[in-house]
């Protein structure tokens, strides 16, 4: 199964096996990983599932125009490795991924 490792802003880590097709955002919500809000339910409309991708085994999709615009409006400032967790799906885009969570989502 694909694996997602979340690194909290404080430094602690948790690794979770994700269902294929489930996003980094959704996996966090279903497993109680704090630090991801995902208010719009994964429509790339709210920018509250911001993550910094540290490493990835797989090929992430290009950043769409919508995602690009949303990333300009995140609560913690955008960096080079910023993505929206709702756009990154286990299996489809990666076998394993490590993401750092921002301090704030809203």
């Amino acid at each position, binding site marked *: 199964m694909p694996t997602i490792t979340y690194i909290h802003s404080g430094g602690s880590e948790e690794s979770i096996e994700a269902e294929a097709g489930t996003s980094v955002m959704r996996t966090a*919500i*279903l497993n*109680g990983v704090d630090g991801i809000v995902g*208010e*719009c339910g994964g*429509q790339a*409309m709210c920018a509250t599932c911001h993550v910094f991708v540290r490493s990835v085994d797989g090929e992430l999709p290009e950043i769409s125009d919508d995602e690009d*615009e949303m990333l*300009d*409006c995140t609560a913690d400032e955008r960096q080079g490795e910023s993505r929206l967790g709702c756009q990154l799906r286990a299996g489809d885009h990666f076998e394993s991924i490590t993401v750092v969570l921002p301090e704030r989502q809203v």
Partner: protein
Amino acid sequence: MPDSIVIIGAGQAGVTAAVTLRERGWEGEIHLIGEESAAPYQRPPLSKGYLSGAESSDDLLLRAGHLFERDQIQLRTGVSVRRVDREARTVELSGGEVLAYDALIFATGSAPRALTLPGAELDGVHVIRTVQDADSLRQSLHRAGGSVFIGGGFLGLEVAAQAAKLGSVTVLELAPQILGRVLSRESASAISAYLESLGINIRCGVQLREIEGDVGSVSAVVLGDGERIPASSVVVSIGAVPRDELASECGLEVNGGIVVDSGLRTSDEMIFAIGDCAKYPSLFAGIDMRVESVQNATDQARYVASVLTGGDHGPRYSAVPWFWSHQGERKLQIAGIALPDDEARLVEHDTESGKLVVERLRGGDVVAVETINAAGAHMKARRLLAEMGAR
């Protein structure tokens, strides 16, 4: 500091309030009471991906069930509140249990406005509010025969765009235009033209006489002039009414919603109301109003959680309102709040891609921006309005 917080309603507002209280370090009891038997879920997908079948009921969950336990949030589902005793500061649950509260939050939401028309009770007449509503609507739309939508608001039109993939669809609107109350004429016309391009027959300015049935099931909608529109499904989506009965019964001020001040407090100091049910003085609209949106529910929930945990939330609730709706393949977003009389200025319209930007102005100031397929302009508007709100 109070020891026990009771939250009535386990939708987006109630759940966000409970979770945020814990996140902010609240150590007392949190009781979250949900009338529906299902675990707390998100409603927006009910008229979008869940209805189409692209998303499952697991995808709807606001959070996994075990997390409420982990966070020591006492969640009760399938339980309603019978009465609130403000003197004793207790709520009595449908099973007879009595809970004491130090602070109480109404997050009771809203309910579909009922259609008063002969035949409204027939099988095949649907509303969209709960997961059961969406399940039964999905089955109904897959049956042969056309569907008729009563009411041309965001919710009904989202469903109509999906139903158009399955059969003939007619939208009936009493007003001269769909979305007239909530959008500028420019944006509403663009949505209307797009929906018509999907094959939807939109009829505005109509009167309704009755819904006709055949052995208890809907067969047609009859217009005021006697015209009969055959239908095997009728979807009624004519707005929502606040769930403010309980608040009214315990003597709180209600007036088309539970009346709260700019800090979301009711006429009782230790009782708050948030989300769809709360009527509050909107900084952005300049009037008292209710707002039905995920943003409103969650931002108000976080505000009250901050008040109850002594955060730096500011003296009044002032989050920028924003809203989204999927109309078929088009993404509509609104930042800010416009009133029907506010001026409209068309900034950009590309009919091919559907991209549209319309500013709404009041006294020369931009108070809202409506966009279609233009996330960048939407986000820019939100930032701008946030600066305005902070002034």
